[in-house]
């Protein structure tokens, strides 16, 4: 089954085109790495697929349903229940303990406090950080924080996990531990993963790599999809309206 589909997705920030017609399919349970040099549009594509940003043109489909036309409220609900998101760093609420952070998405979805804590503890345990349950993020290493953030992204058992440079702020060993957990747990749960990275060794964790270059899929790169519609130069509507939409603030608001 096709989990996610982008068809001719175009997105600009003011006059800057970030995506110039992206077409891409992600199968259920697949781990796809989106790679390419800095500024090529990887994060923008992830935001569009995750319903955080709305494309200017083109379509985004999740399990056969077009989601780019949904209201902000509907997309926000989708992100809370079916999608999990993991960023480079700084996603944990500093005032809350690890267990409280991990339980947060469940509490927002209406789970009771006690059941939320039980689930959070189980997830922290699966990520090898059970002993940090009552520790606040400020007292954890980067790798430990990122494992908690991964637990929080997975606690709702999402269909899709979106990870944007999830190890970008970690040293190699800590990064590999996070990626090892991410891949193992995703495979166990058949979670589909969109993994954005500019590092070849991180892309090595994926089943497949989609390379971007200047806002298009680099067909010459690894012989994956070639943009089939809405190619370069296509008009990008809504100029000026979306500047700043992809800022860390709005992305995190989507999570909270």
């Amino acid at each position: 089954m096709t989990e996610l589909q982008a068809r001719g997705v175009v997105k600009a920030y003011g006059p800057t085109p970030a995506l110039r017609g992206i077409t891409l399919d992600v199968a259920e349970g697949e781990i796809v790495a989106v790679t390419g040099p800095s500024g090529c549009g990887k994060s923008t594509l992830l935001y569009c697929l995750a319903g955080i940003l709305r494309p200017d043109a083109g379509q985004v489909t999740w399990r056969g349903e077009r989601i780019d036309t949904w209201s902000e409220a509907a997309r926000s609900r989708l992100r809370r229940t079916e999608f999990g998101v993991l960023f480079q760093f700084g996603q944990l609420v500093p005032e809350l303990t690890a267990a409280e952070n991990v339980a947060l998405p469940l509490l927002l979805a209406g789970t009771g406090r006690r059941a939320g804590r039980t689930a959070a503890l189980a997830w922290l345990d699966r990520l090898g950080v059970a002993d940090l349950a009552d520790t606040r993020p400020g007292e954890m290493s980067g790798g430990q924080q990122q494992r908690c953030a991964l637990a929080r992204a997975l606690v709702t058992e999402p269909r899709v996990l979106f990870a944007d440079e999830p190890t970008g702020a970690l040293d190699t060993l800590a990064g590999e531990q996070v990626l090892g957990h991410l891949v193992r747990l995703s495979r166990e749960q058949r979670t589909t993963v969109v993994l954005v990275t500019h590092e070849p060794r991180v892309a090595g964790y994926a089943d497949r790599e989609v390379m971007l270059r200047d806002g298009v899929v680099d067909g010459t790169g690894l012989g994956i999809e070639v943009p089939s519609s809405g190619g370069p130069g296509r008009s990008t509507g809504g100029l000026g309206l979306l500047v700043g939409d992809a800022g860390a603030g709005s992305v995190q608001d989507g999570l909270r």
Partner: protein
Amino acid sequence: MIGVSTPHVLLGLLAQGSRHGYELKRAHDQRLPRARPLAFGQVYATLGRLQRDGLVAPAGQDRDGGPDRTTYALTGAGRDALDLWLAEVEPPLPYVTSTLFAKVLVALLVADAERAREYLVAQRRAHTDRLRELTAVKTDPSATLDDVVAADFAIAHLDADLRWLHTTLERVADWHREVHS
């Protein structure tokens, strides 16, 4: 890449206790899981040279006898040779000898930037596939630390090659101009 020094690895394995050739081969392939497996012939030939140089000595025969069942032990001289070798720092990449590099250059000499680019793209795909394979080895729950550390070594080198392949792809047109100016 710096080659494995098989004689020293065999000496190192013998430092743990005497063994015969077959046991040495098994220990070698287990401890260096991503190395090219040693052929028996190579083990016996190496042991022969090490014995000639006084670095190992026969230390007995297994019950069933035969030349293949001779047990070898590390000698004092062998131990000294090992210590010397360990104290010696390897020259960090004294020459740039990669075939990858040579191929791009030759493609530019005999053809054009497009030919070089085709090669770079194909090589990048092969490297990426291998990187993915080794990452799978490493993340397999049954992987031992021997497996992980060996895969890590290969992954780090593939990763470095891949960075070079990416950058060179960006530079190949300029490089072509320089080669032909």
